[in-house]
């Protein structure tokens, strides 16, 4: 009732009087104001939707080979038909259906890769940031040095040794990407640990666990979610790259990288085979980058003002 009579200033997510519904509505308004963020969210949800509902959306079985329909161009060009909207590949498989199913590989790698990297990195970074001193300097130096190595080269090298499987790809990205999360977590923990509100909580006699879980963790979430979005986008990118070199999931699995690799051999004669999977990668990557930019602005109010 009181909220109707006394309007509140609408610029803080941290206003404790707000309910969760208020906060969600507030985020929704911010999102509506940022058209790039809206587009990013839409593209991201589109990809998630096609991954989840692939069997219901895809017009064909992605593995079904119909030789008499092979090398069919997309529907709008001469010789194409709406039976296969984006055409077929050299084995007569429907490209549109394969792209829809391919989103499952990309999102699985991106999601679990980030989950593993984020968990590992957060633990390492939090230890470094919270303990400080010698432990911190050893961890920080190691992380910085590891991050200076040519990343892609080592991913390719390790993938070549372990062979093609979804689990291997997830583990490779999950482990090699952990240092970035460690670096960001450490920086944030250091900043928060020195802040006034942690000091006052400590003075008020808050326990160690309470400081970590009630004061440090909630403030870490923002930067880490933003980083996770960008890293997930990067992993989807790199997975496609590995697939392109024939080092990601087995060739029988429909994935965007595998499709690019297969299409590359017929680039000049049947260009559509390699073109459309690339569009799918671009849409996903664009969506996640826009979403990440927006999250960074929203979750960090200081940046929000600078951007305007």
């Amino acid at each position, binding site marked *: 009732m009181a909220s109707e009579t006394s309007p509140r200033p609408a610029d803080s997510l941290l206003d404790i009087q707000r309910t969760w519904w208020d906060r969600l509505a507030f985020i929704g308004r911010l999102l509506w104001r940022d058209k790039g963020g809206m587009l990013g969210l839409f593209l991201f949800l589109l990809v998630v939707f096609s991954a989840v509902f692939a069997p219901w959306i895809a017009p064909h079985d992605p593995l079904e080979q119909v030789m008499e329909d092979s090398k069919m161009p997309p529907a709008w060009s001469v010789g194409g038909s709406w039976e296969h909207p984006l055409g077929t590949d050299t084995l007569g498989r429907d490209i549109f259906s394969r792209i829809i199913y391919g989103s499952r590989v990309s999102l699985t790698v991106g999601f679990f890769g980030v989950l593993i990297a984020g968990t590992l990195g957060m633990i390492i970074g939090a230890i470094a940031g919270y303990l400080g001193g010698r432990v911190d300097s050893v961890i920080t*130096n190691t992380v910085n*040095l*590891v991050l*200076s*190595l*040519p*990343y*892609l*080269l*080592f991913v*390719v*090298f*390790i993938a*070549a*040794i*372990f062979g093609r499987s979804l689990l291997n790809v997830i583990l490779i990205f999950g482990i090699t990407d952990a240092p970035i999360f460690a670096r960001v977590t450490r920086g944030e923990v250091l900043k928060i640990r020195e802040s006034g509100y942690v000091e006052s909580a400590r003075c008020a006699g808050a326990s160690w666990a309470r400081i970590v879980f009630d004061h440090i963790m909630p403030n870490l979430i923002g930067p880490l979610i933003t980083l996770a979005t960008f890293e997930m*986008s990067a992993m989807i*990118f790199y997975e*496609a*790259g590995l697939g*392109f*070199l*024939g*080092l990601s999931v087995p060739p029988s699995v429909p994935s965007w990288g595998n499709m*690019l690799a297969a299409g*590359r051999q017929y*680039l*000049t004669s049947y*260009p559509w085979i*390699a*073109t459309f*999977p*690339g569009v799918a*990668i*671009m849409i996903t*990557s*664009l969506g996640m*980058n*826009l979403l990440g930019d927006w999250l960074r602005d929203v979750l960090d109010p200081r940046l929000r003002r*600078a951007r305007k």
Partner: protein
Amino acid sequence: MLRYFLIRLGQSLALMFGVLLLVFMMLRVTGDPAALMLPREASAAEIEAFRERMGFNRPIIVQFVDFLSKAVVGDFGESLHFRTPAMTLVTQRLPATVELAATGLLFAVLIGVPIGMMGGLKPGSAADSLARLLALMGQSIPNFWLAMLMILFFGVQLRWFPTFGRGAWNSVVMPAFVLGLPVMGQIVRLTRSTVLEIRSEDFVRTAYSKGLEPPVIYLKHILRNASIPIISVIGVQFGYMLGGSIYIETIFAWPGMGQLLQLAIGWRDFPLVQAIAIFTSTVVIALNLLTDLVYAIIDPRIRYGF
């Protein structure tokens, strides 16, 4: 300064040792390096003979000491495919990769810095929209895919540039462009945000109130201060480009280290793969060391931190 240099040198050497250990362990972590390097249809006797020849049947510590002592003089064994020293094969390919990476970087800097600066100086303007679009494109377009489209359009249809190989003067244009594209995106983004920050610093306001001409302020006060983070990113990115040109070199059949790596993986020629990984890492580590030293000379705050 000397102390800083020695600490950085020590770190680089430690990292080099880490790389050697990592590569050594990775080749043995699946259990049997002989099975990894030989074709699947190899007989038991062939595998045994191969183990004997490569020394895989010795104790692991002995193997590592042997590996290290040869590594310090640049000996990484013979390529299984070519039957010549792996290191020679790699260094022969270095000039092509450096040419590609340097051209790509030049393109990224020449386009990225001015556009990023225009965006940062006038946020919200048309130039700024262009800068933000370019940054986003650089991040989102898969460059190995764009490479294929460019081959189709500029190579096959318009016949402006050769579609593969390193020969005519213009053969470097397309591969360098696509290799530099993600880096350009990053440079635009970084320049824009740095300039945006510096623009509202006190010394810039002072410069304006002294009545200096805007171009002088842009170049002498803003660009000069913005150049410090940009230089450090350029150093790091050049290293990434040397190691990350594998897709682009493969697509354009550019005879550099990246293409050799892709071929060596196909042949399961792991001594060669190992030589490429270690050599590229060494170059990148050396470059990073050099960047940090240049950085410390430009910006005294860094060396006094030690």
